[in-house]
């Protein structure tokens, strides 16, 4: 019980308390720092281990000196500088080695060797420190207390290491830190119990103690600073870690290019809004925005310019929506807006209109002008749905409808849109099937010489009867075939079959076959045509291919090459639906075109509509002066026929003469006429 007596009688209690606090704070800090060695690898691990050892060593050292300040031996004392510094090095170095061993995988080695090294270094520090302590008196050591102090220190240190390993990276570090602090404190005071000074009679007490006090205070302050540094490095590390966690969170939910929320954030917010809708009934609108003509910008101006356009789109969207609305980039050129608290349809239309308007304005990137546009689909919650999936589906349908509409802009979801899309999906599936089974039919509409009324040939037309939905108009199914990429295959089949059928007609009659823009872009077209002619034995000079103006747009070189090649083999080329599209005169001039077909929309407004009559007249005259033949399509009445004949069109076709009829009927029709002519 000498330990307690010594502690009680020979020490200043306040200073002892300070030493204990110092010891506990130091222990907590070093344990906290040491925990980082569990999560780090490589050099980082050693750095944390060193930092922890540095703090722990300082704590041991400081505890010792502060406690020594409180020790009142009743004689004057001095300190040996060299030994004091050496004791600090022992504390730091010993703890460092001990902690390194303590973090090894093997539990036995870690606990006993690591703990032992730490315990012994605490002791070594203490006794070296005591040798530096020069008291003017007779110093006596009690060996049993020295031994007891060693055993206690090693034991407690080992326990501390064991608990520390158990605690891992958890927040409960009280036990290991407490055990470590206990190791330091116990050693110190047991060590002090082993130590006693008997004043020498005749020597004045307290002679040089002022110097000792100053030095010890300096040591304590330095140690304090070191532990402070340890604490702050722990805090800094924690702040950086939480900051980098925030950053990770930001990156996970935002699009790097535009800084808008990303698809994931969009889904989360939409789910949350649907939840809110169920609980509080707060309505909102969902807008999905798809950029038009964005891909060409990437292709022609380059991806860096495309990226800048996207950034500008993002910034414009933020301007177009109201404050607080949620904007996200959910795909390459797809964006979404969640607009809160919109109640009237007018407000929603106004917002969607603003989005369309602002994205329709020109973009300038590196001195180049990019004209974009946006299609917007809008759905309302709860009107169109109250769960995320349904709403996204409705908005998608509205967007799809907006994208397909002639006039780009926004569309509010309507249930009827769903039917349109459904029908289209069915048609697509049926068309694929029909394409495999070759379920298409070819019919022929006779073409008549407007002057003589005699047949000059027939135009082959594609017909398709859907097994479930009945007859489908070519204007509906041909665009789908084009989009599905099936048109070339079917076109080739039509050509082959039509040549085959026409080969049986009287020899003065021609055959006209429509060629889609997609087919015209295919460089193999001349070969396909020649093959069809060869197989059927139908002469090239009697074949006419009908193309539309859209096919001539933009792809000058390829199309020119194909058309020239066809023309060289004697095939004639006619321009279909003339007058509706661009009707560019330069096309007529540049491309090897032999015939113009006036679009039936003009013909059908005859003879009452003056404007149409003028157009028909102008086209006929144009054809005559360019040495091209002119055909008028869609003639249904005698009056129209009279009017057309007056204008001088070469050929006519329409219901007035015959509806499109099947191959055998047209064959009969042609042969009958020939027989009649021969008979006459």
């Amino acid at each position, binding site marked *: 019980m000498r330990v307690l007596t010594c502690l009680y009688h020979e020490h200043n209690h306040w200073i002892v308390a300070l030493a204990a606090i110092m010891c506990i704070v130091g222990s907590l800090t070093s344990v906290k720092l040491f925990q980082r060695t569990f999560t780090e690898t490589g050099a980082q691990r050693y750095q944390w281990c060193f930092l922890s050892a540095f703090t722990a060593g300082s704590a041991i050292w400081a505890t010792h000196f502060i406690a020594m300040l409180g020790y009142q031996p009743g004689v004057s004392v001095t300190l040996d500088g060299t030994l004091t510094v050496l004791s600090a090095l022992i504390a730091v170095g010993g703890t460092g080695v001990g902690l390194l061993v303590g973090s090894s995988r093997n539990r036995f080695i870690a606990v006993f060797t690591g703990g032992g090294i730490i315990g012994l270094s605490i002791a070594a520090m203490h006794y070296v420190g005591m040798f530096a302590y020069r008291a003017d008196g007779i110093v006596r050591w009690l060996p049993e207390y020295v031994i007891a102090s060693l055993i206690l220190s090693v034991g407690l240190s080992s326990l501390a290491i064991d608990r520390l390993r158990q605690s891992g990276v958890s927040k409960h570090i009280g036990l290991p830190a407490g055990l470590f602090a206990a190791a330091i404190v116990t050693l110190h005071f047991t060590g002090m119990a082993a130590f006693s000074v008997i004043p020498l009679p005749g020597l004045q007490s307290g002679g040089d103690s002022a110097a000792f006090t100053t030095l010890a205070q300096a040591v304590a302050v330095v140690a304090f600073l070191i532990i402070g540094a340890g604490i702050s490095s722990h805090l800094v590390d924690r702040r950086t870690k939480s900051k980098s966690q925030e950053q990770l969170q930001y990156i996970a939910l935002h699009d790097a290019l535009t800084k808008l929320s990303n698809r994931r954030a969009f889904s989360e917010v939409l789910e949350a809004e649907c939840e809110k809708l169920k609980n509080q009934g707060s309505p909102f609108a969902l807008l999905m925005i798809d950029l038009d003509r964005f891909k060409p910008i990437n292709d022609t101006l380059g991806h860096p310019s495309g990226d800048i356009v996207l950034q500008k789109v993002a*910034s414009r969207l933020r*301007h177009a929506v109201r404050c607080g609305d949620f904007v996200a980039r959910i795909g390459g050129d797809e964006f979404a807006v969640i607009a809160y608290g919109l109640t009237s349809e007018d407000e929603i239309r106004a917002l969607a209109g603003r989005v369309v*308007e*602002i994205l329709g304005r*020109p*973009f*300038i*990137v590196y*001195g180049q*002008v990019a004209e974009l546009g946006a299609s917007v689909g809008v759905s309302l919650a709860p009107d169109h749905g109250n769960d995320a999936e349904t709403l996204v589906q409705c908005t998608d349908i509205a967007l799809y409808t907006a994208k397909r509409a002639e006039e780009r802009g926004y569309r509010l979801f309507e249930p009827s849109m769903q039917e349109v899309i459904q029908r289209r999906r069915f048609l697509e599936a049926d068309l694929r099937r029909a394409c495999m089974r070759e379920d298409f039919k070819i019919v022929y509409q006779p073409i008549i010489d407007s002057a003589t009324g005699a047949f000059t040939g027939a135009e082959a037309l594609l017909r398709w009867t859907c097994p479930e939905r009945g007859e489908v108009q070519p204007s509906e199914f041909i665009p789908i075939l084009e989009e599905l990429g099936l048109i070339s295959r079917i076109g080739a089949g039509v050509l082959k079959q039509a040549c085959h059928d026409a080969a049986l007609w009287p020899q003065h009659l021609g055959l006209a076959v429509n060629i889609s823009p997609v087919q015209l872009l295919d460089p193999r077209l001349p070969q396909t045509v020649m093959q069809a002619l060869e197989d059927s034995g139908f002469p090239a000079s009697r074949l006419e291919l009908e193309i539309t103006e859209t096919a001539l747009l933009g792809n000058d070189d390829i199309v020119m090459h194909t058309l020239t090649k066809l023309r060289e083999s004697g095939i004639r080329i006619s321009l279909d639906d003339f007058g509706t599209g661009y009707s560019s005169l330069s096309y007529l001039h540049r491309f090897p075109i032999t015939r113009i077909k006036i679009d039936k929309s003009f013909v059908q407004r005859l003879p009452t509509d003056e404007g149409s009559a003028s157009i028909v007249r102008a086209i006929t005259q144009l054809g005559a002066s360019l040495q091209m033949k002119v055909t008028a399509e869609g003639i249904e009445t005698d009056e129209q026929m009279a009017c057309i004949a007056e204008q001088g069109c070469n050929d006519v076709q329409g219901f007035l003469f015959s509806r499109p009829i099947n191959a055998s009927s047209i064959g009969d029709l042609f042969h009958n006429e020939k027989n009649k002519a021969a008979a006459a």
Partner: protein
Amino acid sequence: MNAHRSHKQFSRLLYTSAFNGDSSAVQPQQTVRDIAETSAANNRVSDITGSLFFVDGVFIQILEGPPDEVEKTFERICCDFRHADLRLIDLTGVSERLFEEWDMACLYEDQESSLALRDGLQEVRFLVGINASQAALQMRSLLESQSVGGEA
């Protein structure tokens, strides 16, 4: 001048837009003055010069200056809903400014406008539709005649 000048160092941009009546209740003339004032203040900072005309409810504005500044200013205009039916008429590289002396000159017609000014503005409006560079020159000569007239 020196080599820098002979190079096309400036961009000149001409656009037109309609006055978006429902975005503010104030008189269009007031809006024009506001726009001209704020843009003059911004332009001093970004080294842009130009002019803003307002004819028959249509803004005709020219911006000239360093290309990236013109780009930035135009982007800001594109985000402004006081404009409607915004059309970019012309964007060219030029070696000299036409409106060196004006941060943002402003001309519009009101009750007090002279007949000459009205005719001049109408002519600018007509030219914008067919020849952008002619329109720009006409805008400058109109401004010059106005400031001379103002001093007399």
